[in-house]
């Protein structure tokens, strides 16, 4: 079975974040934290991404965009919600335009709490996401193999 977890490419989308978490996400890529040593690349392209990193809550404006970005990503894919706003809506939860966390539109795999989430926590969240990413592929492969045996 192929080890695909060595090359997780990240797509970063800023929902309605205050930019606090975005700056921390970018800090992960700087020489201090150097996420690329784990093979993590921040691509701007959903078609090439494996892990969907979302900061900020979901409002009526960006709900469709988040859903479309998620649909454009090829399987297997993992969603990581970064920051408390992306997890639950945070301090903006009761605002008239906020629907809540990212899980109101798409399924979320890893929640990284914090306001703002620390770079260490974000990298840990991605690392957990990577394991799920590999597991999904393994399960899919297993399923395909078993199906092949049945049809034979």
């Amino acid at each position: 079975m192929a080890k695909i977890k060595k090359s997780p490419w990240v797509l970063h989308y800023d929902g309605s974040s205050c930019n606090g978490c975005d700056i921390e996400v970018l800090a992960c890529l700087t020489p201090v934290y150097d996420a690329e040593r784990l093979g993590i690349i921040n691509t701007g392209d959903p078609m090439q991404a494996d892990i969907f990193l979302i900061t900020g809550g979901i409002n009526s404006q960006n709900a469709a965009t988040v859903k479309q970005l998620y649909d454009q990503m090829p399987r297997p894919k993992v969603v990581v919600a970064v920051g408390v706003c992306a997890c639950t809506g945070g301090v903006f939860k009761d605002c008239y335009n906020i629907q809540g966390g990212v899980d109101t539109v798409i399924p979320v795999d890893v929640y990284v709490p914090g306001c703002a989430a620390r770079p260490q926590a974000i990298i840990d969240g991605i690392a957990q996401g990577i394991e799920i990413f590999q597991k999904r592929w393994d399960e899919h492969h297993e399923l395909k193999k078993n199906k092949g045996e049945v049809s034979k």
Partner: protein
Amino acid sequence: MIYKGIIFAIAYVLLAPFVGGFLEGVDRKISARMQRRVGPPVLQPFYDVRKLLNKQTISVMTAQTFLLMTYMVLMILTGFMFFYGTDILMCFFVMSTGATFLYFASVVTSSPYSSIGAQRELIQMMAYEPAVLLSCVGFYLAAGTFQVAEIAGGDHLSYFLQLPGFFVAFVFILTIKMRKSPFDISTSHHAHQELIKGVTTEMGSKNLAIFQITEWYENVFLMGVVGLFFVNSNVYSVIVAIVAILLVYFLEILIDNSSARMKWADMLKLSWVVTLFSAGVNLIILMVIR
């Protein structure tokens, strides 16, 4: 002679992806060190391609895969012909044809980002083509033949001594060909440019893997041309050529990490001026001497 050519050509087809991928891994490692980072493992490009091959294929246009495959086949053919020892001019013509298929592959999706990237790819071709053709002319003037086998196998001093201006022009446009900053205007290895990913925006999973492998073939071929400036029938010249190739590769990484992206008009002007002055002056001197 023919057997030797076939062995070289087959070795190119089989080994070039590994050499190219390894060179890219080293490139990423050195780049990281230049930025005071640890950097990914040297084998990271292979991990990336393995993952891309194992992901679900989503393509906007089914024709894209076919066009990219054609791009790859033509690129392999270019290197095959070069290492077999045929006409160098023909090699570059086949390479340009392949590059046109890359243009089609990205413009066929009708996505605005990849369309603009494709237009810029054509401008890049305009920028590097004069230097490439002049290099062929330079080889002809120095060696009296376009045949790679005869250029590389002659009993002469390295043609680099006669063609330093052509070499400078070729290394200059190599930055464009290898998609290195400041000339990575159509697509970039680095994150987030104004065109998302330019030419490769609409290429996911398998298609991107094909593109990546073709890049490796292309880089090895281009490094072969760099080596051609140094090789003669003497065995030691091969060592000189390999050292020169590694130095040129390091120079490209250094340029990549120490410069910002240019606008396309500036790139076109600069590359033509450099081509005209270094290769042109070299050409005049060569013609006067002969």
